[in-house]
């Protein structure tokens, strides 16, 4: 099994927010926490694009590098997870993340800044698989049920793909060949670029013709 990745096809995303809803529903996410959200670029301008954004489970995750209590780990499948029992809610990961993935609940033992919460790739966390504790802290563990993340599986246009990086790349390649455009994958260079290699510049969205 190769490593798990997310891929959002900006040519297909219709900003329906089905992924956001699926995530919220699947993990019983509290109000104010958004593990996944849809971002629109060039809103209202011809050529606008929407992209579904969450934790990309980066190859060289900046959140892991900056965490002062080292509560992050990477699973065998390449999913970046964290131990909420260790997290002190300092917020360093939030500043380090290029995707704005870490979320901080506004209630709980730590007052206004609770323990960090983020997308788990539906892989739970460091608790026994399918346990009540795991669900309460991290949400449902779909990966242990042999399923892929709910957001990707629920996506009606299949703009959001989640799973084995090699398979996703194959699917995307077939699509781009068939439609003959839109070969740039948003966020992949930042999330999965080679270590030591400077992240590539994101492709600029098409500007409106005057």
């Amino acid at each position, binding site marked *: *099994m190769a490593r798990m990745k997310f891929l959002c096809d900006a040519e297909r995303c219709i900003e329906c927010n089905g992924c956001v809803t699926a995530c919220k529903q699947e993990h019983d996410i509290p109000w104010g926490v958004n593990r996944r959200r849809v971002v629109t670029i060039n809103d209202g301008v011809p050529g606008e694009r929407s992209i579904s954004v969450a934790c990309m489970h980066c190859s060289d995750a900046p959140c892991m590098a900056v965490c002062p209590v*080292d509560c992050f780990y990477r699973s*065998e499948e390449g999913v970046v997870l964290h*131990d909420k029992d260790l997290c002190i809610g300092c917020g360093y990961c939030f500043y380090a993340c290029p995707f704005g993935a870490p979320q901080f609940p506004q209630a709980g033992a730590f007052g206004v800044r609770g323990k960090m919460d983020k997308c788990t790739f539906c892989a739970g966390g460091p608790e026994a*698989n399918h346990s009540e504790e795991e669900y309460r802290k991290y949400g449902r563990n779909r990966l242990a049920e042999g399923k*892929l993340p709910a957001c990707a599986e629920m996506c009606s246009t*299949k703009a959001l793909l989640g799973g084995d990086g090699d398979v996703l790349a194959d*699917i995307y390649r077939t699509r781009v060949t068939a439609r003959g455009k839109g070969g740039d994958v948003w966020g992949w260079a930042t999330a999965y670029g080679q270590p030591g290699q400077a992240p590539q510049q994101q492709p600029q969205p098409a500007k409106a013709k005057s």
Partner: protein
Amino acid sequence: MIRRAGAVGIVLACAALALAGCGERPQVVTYKQGSYQGKPDQPPYTGAPFDGNQKEWDNALRQRNQAQNEYKRIGS
């Protein structure tokens, strides 16, 4: 004799209880910079429904991965 043994038993139980109260548990995590300090996680294929069968789990995920490819689903 029985009463004495009972009393001794109660004393021993109380002593064990009192000693348990003195048991010191580490209250502070000792951090090692740069390495994960939290609880270990289980691989996803442990427990139901795969019961440790990694191959079966791989196959299930492979199938799900391919289900995202509509060119294969509809047969282009």
